[in-house]
């Protein structure tokens, strides 16, 4: 029995234990303990993260002569680490005070914990898949596990989870088609046979397989144009569940893309494929899709008035950075893309946990109904601040490092428009995360929020841990870059030479340790300057300049709605909802055909078409 078996069995055990205690009060502790144990086993597997050879599971078996292989390599380990980290944090958060609150609302925290454990288990299984069949099986399990998590909340979540599962099934069917074609061509579903055969395949075939597999993964990832389900479905998922989904669940799509596009087919092949009538290669087209995935969802996020939706839309946009980085195929860019998976997971998790801490205390995530909570929930504020700095990619948090690497590689690869596109995305992110923190924590404190207190410790501690990780991996990105380099080696990308502080490059590198130290020195000097000079006296927030009026607590003057009025004046009419329109066109078309089919079965003279059919068939036969 290898350590991988131990990991999978622990995950299965957690699942069973959670199910056994699903109605009890300690289900959260059971789940958290189980996830903690899994993380521990994963740490025992840590050599994988530093480039040790892949570990195979002893649990392999044959199905219809098709061996199912389970194995972990550096990439699996890296994704598993993020998965388990996000799972553990969400599970701890969902235990204790939050779960009491949830139970009081008539929901079952037990099933939430179970769904979380199920998601983690299926994802660990997916990461272990060593052939196309187990990949597909685990993929479907992951899809349906996240469907369970999304549908748990009932109410509006039902509509969104149905949308998700429809998209997901379409994606899965696309993968199944690809799988069938692969089986037809190679006679097996092994990765090795695939890789041996791929060199002889024609350009058209490569394109077909890239697109068919890619569509399946893109749905999960929320890559344009398959993104419409994601924001709504995630936003309706109960708090910690959404944090988990937002942090890592979509990235399983990226795992698939890295596996099939990068490791099995090879980016070189994708670069070789030229799209007729253009000067673009298939890889370029995919990069442009990634660019649009960055820009459009980010600017959709800018318009959201619900904190959950806002972050969910950003989740879609940030996926574009990862994809773009990886597709750039350079050592720096792909490292940036891979690193961004980790960084983004921590950022999104901390942001969502902070948002749900606010929801826990105030009962709303509506950005027009909050404000001024900094004085009431300072620790939650800090968590969110760290999160938005990271998400926007501003130093000194980790999000900056990965985005810097993506920009830097686009620069040295000479892709100006993609570079500009990704910066436009970042700018939009800055705008919208400021709106998030401003409308929630800054400005006027509402009268009804006067008695609000800091979130309970069971929720604050996970946030603080995440915030610390975000800062630390921004300060010393080399910790994560070690793993990233191992992933690059495992999937056959060029490996990035890196240092503890970042990237060493003769023509412009990055050393975060130095930069962060100087930044904090600057803050220190500035603070000294500030506090050494005249004493300031704190005043009540209503002691404000109001153009001659007197402000009172019952007047709502928090500037929140239509926050970027000037910007929207210029770009507001660019929001066309084209994807929604296209989706509705497809639905209408299907509806029309369905109606037509149903009409066929309602014909009043059943014998006539039957006779006609018989005659037609006989005529065709003879």
């Amino acid at each position: 029995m290898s350590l991988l078996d131990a990991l999978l069995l622990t995950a299965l055990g957690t699942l069973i234990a959670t199910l056994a205690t699903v109605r009890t009060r300690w289900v959260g502790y059971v789940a958290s303990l189980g996830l903690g144990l899994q993380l521990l086993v994963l740490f025992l597997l840590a050599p994988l993260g530093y480039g040790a050879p892949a570990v195979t599971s002893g649990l392999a078996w044959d199905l219809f002569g098709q061996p199912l292989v389970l194995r972990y390599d550096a990439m699996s380990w890296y994704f598993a680490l993020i998965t388990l980290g996000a799972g553990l944090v969400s599970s701890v958060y969902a235990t204790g005070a939050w779960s009491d609150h949830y139970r009081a609302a008539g929901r079952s925290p037990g099933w939430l914990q179970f769904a979380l454990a199920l998601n983690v288990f299926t994802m660990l299984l997916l990461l272990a898949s060593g052939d196309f069949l187990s990949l597909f099986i685990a993929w479907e399990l992951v899809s349906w596990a996240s469907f369970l998590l999304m549908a748990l909340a009932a109410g509006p979540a039902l509509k969104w989870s149905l949308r998700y599962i429809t998209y997901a099934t379409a994606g899965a069917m696309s993968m199944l088609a690809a799988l069938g074609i692969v089986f037809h061509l190679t006679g097996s579903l092994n990765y090795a046979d695939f890789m041996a055969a791929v060199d002889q395949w024609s350009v058209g075939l490569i394109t077909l397989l890239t697109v068919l597999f890619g569509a399946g993964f893109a749905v999960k990832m929320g890559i344009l144009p398959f993104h419409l389900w994601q924001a709504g479905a995630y936003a309706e998922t109960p708090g910690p569940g959404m944090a988990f989904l937002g942090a890592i669940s979509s990235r399983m799509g990226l795992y698939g893309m890295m596996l099939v596009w990068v490791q099995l087919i090879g980016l070189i092949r994708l670069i070789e494929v030229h799209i007729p009538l253009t000067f673009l290669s298939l890889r370029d087209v995919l990069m442009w899709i990634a660019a649009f995935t960055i820009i459009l969802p980010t600017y959709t996020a800018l318009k959201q008035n619900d904190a959950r939706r806002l972050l969910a839309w950003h989740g879609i946009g940030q996926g574009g950075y990862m994809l773009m980085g990886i597709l750039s195929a350079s050592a720096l860019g792909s490292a940036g893309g891979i690193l961004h998976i980790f960084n983004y997971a921590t950022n999104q998790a901390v942001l969502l946990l902070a948002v749900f801490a606010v929801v826990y205390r105030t009962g709303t995530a509506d950005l027009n109904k909050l404000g001024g909570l900094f004085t009431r929930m300072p620790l939650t504020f800090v968590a969110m601040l760290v999160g938005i700095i990271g998400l926007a990619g501003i130093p000194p948090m980790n999000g900056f490092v990965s985005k810097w690497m993506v920009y830097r590689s686009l620069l040295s690869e000479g892709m100006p428009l993609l570079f500009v596109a990704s910066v436009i995305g970042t700018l939009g992110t800055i705008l919208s995360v400021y709106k998030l923190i401003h409308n929630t924590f800054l400005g006027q404190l509402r009268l009804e929020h006067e008695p609000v207190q800091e979130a309970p410790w069971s929720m604050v501690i996970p946030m603080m841990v995440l915030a610390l990780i975000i800062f630390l991996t921004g300060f010393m990105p080399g910790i994560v870059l070690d793993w990233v380099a191992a992933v690059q080696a495992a999937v056959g990308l060029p490996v990035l030479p890196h240092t503890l502080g970042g990237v060493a490059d003769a023509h412009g590198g990055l050393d975060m340790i130095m930069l962060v130290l100087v930044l904090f020195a600057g803050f220190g000097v500035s603070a000294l300057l500030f506090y050494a000079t005249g004493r300031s006296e704190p005043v009540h927030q209503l002691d404000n300049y109001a153009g001659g009026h007197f402000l009172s607590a019952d007047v709502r003057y928090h500037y929140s709605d239509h926050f970027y009025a000037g910007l929207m004046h210029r770009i507001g009419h660019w929001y066309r909802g084209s994807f929604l329109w296209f989706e509705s066109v497809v639905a209408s078309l299907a509806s029309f055909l369905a109606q037509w089919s149903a009409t066929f079965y309602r014909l009043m003279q059943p014998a006539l078409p039957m006779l006609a059919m018989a005659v037609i068939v006989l005529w065709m036969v003879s």
Partner: protein
Amino acid sequence: MEIGKRIADIILMPIVAFVIGLFMVLMLRKIAAKLQRRVGPPFFQPLIDIIKFYSKTTQVSHGLLHDIGIIMAVGGYLAAESLLPVPGMDGLSDKGGIITLTYFLMIPSLGLALGVGQCANPNGSIGISRALTAMLAYDIPFVIVIFGVAWHYGTTDLSEMISLQQAQGWGAFEMPLLALAGLFALQGMMGKQPFEIYVAPAEIATGPMVEMGGKYMGGLFVMQCFQLYTAGVLYTTLFLGGGTHWLDFLIKIFAVVAIPMMIAFTFPRYRTEDMLRLMWKWPVLAGLLGIAFVMY
């Protein structure tokens, strides 16, 4: 580079920046005065202003975050200056190039935004909303310029760019379109006429500064000095070959700030949405054309 020299650089560079920034503020005030046929302030007025702000007896704080915002605003610039090489001092320019600098410059803005937000004055928040929108406006041509320059020199390291320019000639002559676009972006970045609506210095009650007084205002004043200095040095570094020695360096950076300002001061103020349209049209077009010339 030995460690002692580096530390000395890191300490000296912000101080130099502050002093030069003070002179730039003075110069701008003089220019404005001349254009408006006034005498203008005396030589030490900027320094006196700062001392005055910091020594006010009434210092109104709207809470901890208000303070932290100002600290971040000034501290961010203090750190950022060490990324901008000047003659004889490279500081940290090899540890993070032009991209890092661009993002470092967002830290003070973020600090300011947080501090203003904490003041709970809707006028302040509106100002921030405008400031961020303006950032979206000028940063797009700016990153186009950055791309073109970095691609042209094959590096993001600013000191390497300087030495390359001193060998091959100024960037402004090799990439005139990019230099032009950069000038536009720079004007927006400084928050000066005609793009000063988000600062709204003339009608202080409707901008971010509405709740700022005393050392808070003083902090912003210091920040402004740094801002002008940074803009001047950055442009000089990208397009005007940096400085071989302090004299030509100072001439260049003052010219970069002064000459566009003389022209721009005569223009009426742009509204936010008009600024977006302006910035996204001509500078972007020029920048993209410039990149096309540089790359092909």
